[in-house]
């Protein structure tokens, strides 16, 4: 049995989404900017897709949603755009973000620091979140932007976006949120949360890879990252990938309609909890950041004595895919910044394994995964030098 538990990395394209995209490859393939009927023929479905996107995040008609290649491009567009508008051409020089943002935020901020921009990286507490007061305290007269993620990709922890949005609105500072891990898991309402800019990516909610979106509240500037033609109202040059846009629109619709969110927060959550509870029956295991205020599909569990990549290896041998932020699994050998950010127990930094489910995960898959995971933990703890020989954790406890 194959079990895919890495849905925070990417998701399967919903077959219904794939079917909706198909005509735009070989049948309705005209350039949407062309005047003739081949191009114009794409418009009705593009309008429908855009409507789905607006509905999915409750954007107002006057606001903009720019189609991008992914959330990374959306994040770069916002931060570099603010850099140009408010910093290079203005008198502001400060950005507030958090330590646990996706690299498409932190790497851009690190780059801008080399250009003289001042950046505050807010720390998260032991529950993996920060509060609006921290943002309020960090705001300066020259703050140009606040960028805080809606939900964390590793832990699933949900940040207090409405409160942070209120703080930013009161201070008159644009507020950007990367909602990549929130769409389709929790309600996302840009108007209720005073969001100025919001990024998302289709492949995280059963849409295709290579397409994303950027919401821009009416009245706020947006300097294009890609200059060229007049596509997307001059905000993003390049011929629109109609098939991807249509796929993303439908995927957003399917993921954010009330019954879908209800399913996510009941059935998907039930399976996540079943998996999590079974792993937590093993001694010396803990949910990083705790169980409260999380997306319903995600759990990041530390299994003491078991290095993350070894655990992935054993699971992969049994055709289970999950993820680890531990150093050895990637080319970047530093421990995951999210794991490090908790800071309370450095020994946990290399022991985290992330399991992320989707609406396509089945009960049988979770049952199989539980069996495999328990066996893998038992084997690796038998080998482990840091677990098996501490008397209180003798392997017989397993």
């Amino acid at each position, binding site marked *: 049995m194959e079990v895919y538990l890495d849905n925070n990395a990417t998701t399967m394209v919903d077959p219904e989404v794939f079917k909706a995209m198909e005509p735009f490859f070989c049948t309705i393939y005209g350039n949407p900017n062309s005047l003739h009927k081949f191009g114009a023929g794409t418009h009705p479905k593009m309008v429908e897709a855009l409507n789905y996107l607006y509905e999915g995040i409750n954007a107002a008609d006057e606001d903009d949603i720019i189609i991008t290649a992914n959330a990374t491009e959306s994040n770069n567009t916002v931060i570099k755009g603010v850099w140009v508008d408010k910093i290079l051409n203005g008198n502001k020089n400060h950005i507030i973000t958090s330590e646990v943002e996706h690299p498409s935020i932190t790497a851009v901020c690190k780059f801008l620091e080399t250009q003289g921009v001042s950046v505050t990286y807010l720390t998260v507490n032991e529950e993996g979140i920060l509060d609006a007061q921290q943002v309020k305290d960090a705001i300066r007269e020259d703050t140009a932007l606040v960028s805080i993620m809606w939900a964390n990709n590793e832990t699933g922890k949900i940040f207090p976006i409405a409160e942070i949005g209120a703080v930013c609105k009161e201070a008159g500072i644009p507020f950007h949120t990367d909602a990549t891990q929130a769409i389709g898991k929790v309600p996302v309402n840009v108007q209720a949360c005073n969001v100025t800019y919001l990024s998302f990516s289709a492949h995280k909610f059963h849409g295709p890879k290579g397409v994303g979106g950027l919401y821009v509240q009416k009245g706020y500037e947006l300097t294009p990252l890609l200059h060229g033609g007049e596509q997307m109202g001059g905000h993003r040059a390049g011929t629109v990938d109609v098939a991807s846009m249509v796929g993303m629109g439908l995927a957003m619709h399917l993921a954010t309609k009330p019954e879908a969110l209800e399913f996510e927060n009941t059935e998907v959550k039930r399976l996540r909890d079943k998996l999590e509870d079974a792993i937590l029956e093993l001694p010396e295991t803990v949910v990083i950041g705790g169980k409260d205020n999380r997306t319903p599909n995600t759990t990041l569990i530390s299994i003491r*004595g*078991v*290095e993350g*990549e*070894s655990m992935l*290896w054993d699971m*992969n*041998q049994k055709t289970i895919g999950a993820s680890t932020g*531990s*150093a*050895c*699994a*990637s*080319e*970047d*050998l*530093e*421990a995951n910044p999210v794991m490090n950010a908790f800071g309370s127990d*450095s*020994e946990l*930094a*290399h*022991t985290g394994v992330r399991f992320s489910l989707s609406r396509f995960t089945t009960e049988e898959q979770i049952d199989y995964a539980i069996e495999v995971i328990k066996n893998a933990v038992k084997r690796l703890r*038998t*080998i*482990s*030098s*840091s*677990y*098996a*020989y501490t008397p209180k954790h003798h392997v017989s406890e397993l």
Partner: protein
Amino acid sequence: MAKGDLISGSIWDEYSNQVIRRMDEPTHQGEITEEMATKAGGKLIVADFGAESCGDAVRLYWVVDEKTDKIVDSKFKSFGCGTAIASSDVMAELCIGKTVDEAIKITNIDVEHALRDHPDVPAVPPQKMHCSVMAYDVIKKAAAQYKGVDMESFETEQIVCECARVSLSTIQEVIRLNDLTTVEQITDYTKAGAFCKSCIKPGGHEEKDIYLVDILANTRAEMEHDKLKNAADASEAGNLTFDKMTMVQRIKALDEVLDADVRPMLIMDGGNMEIIDIKENIPHYDVYIRYLGACNGCASGSTGTLYAMESILKQKVDENIRILPI
């Protein structure tokens, strides 16, 4: 960067079959107790190295026959990735049958080679080489324990790149001998910095005492200082040749000859010349000059005068000098 680097695949695809086999079923994983050691007729040594917080930790067990100093049994426990477990397994295996002094000579390079399926194909991708270093270190720790000495006493050299086991003195020597100016050149000559890359500059996954960028900068500064000192000493002794001179000394040497033998004639005709730059174009030294006053625009400046000037400088300073008017 090249085509092959543009699309990264799974690092697991680069593991040798040996690594995979030993990861799945390590042969020498386990514990040796005092009772087991006594039964085997030897002394039990238990050494730990690394830490869970760093991502890698290993415990090495030896049973050593004290009459022969031979390791009669060896087992390990390891917290780490697949490479760390496989490296520990082969490390324990390599120890068996060797004396403690022989075991000390097992390096992480030996461990990695023992994990290869083919002699020319690395067993692990470059960034995983650091996982095999731990095996080397724990052997030293076990040997130190057995001999009752400090493990640092086995290291006569300061190792800068642990993956490739390249010492500080080696790196300094290749920089000097080959006049290296970049870290990439150091890597080409020594393999230092080719694997996990932690030793290149601060900010890698492991903090180091010293980095290649610093060694390069310091050695280049020392080389420059030595060059100046040698030039000054040679000048003082009166045997300084043009190729050993500093730029200032070269300009001074040329000006002395020009002042004595060339400029008086030019000034008599209402002109002059100045040195703009000297560029090494080995084997030549190209001296760029500018004519001044009446010499500027004079037809002889590119024929007779130029030939005479160049001949005098070749004869009195260095035969490889070429004069180039701008």
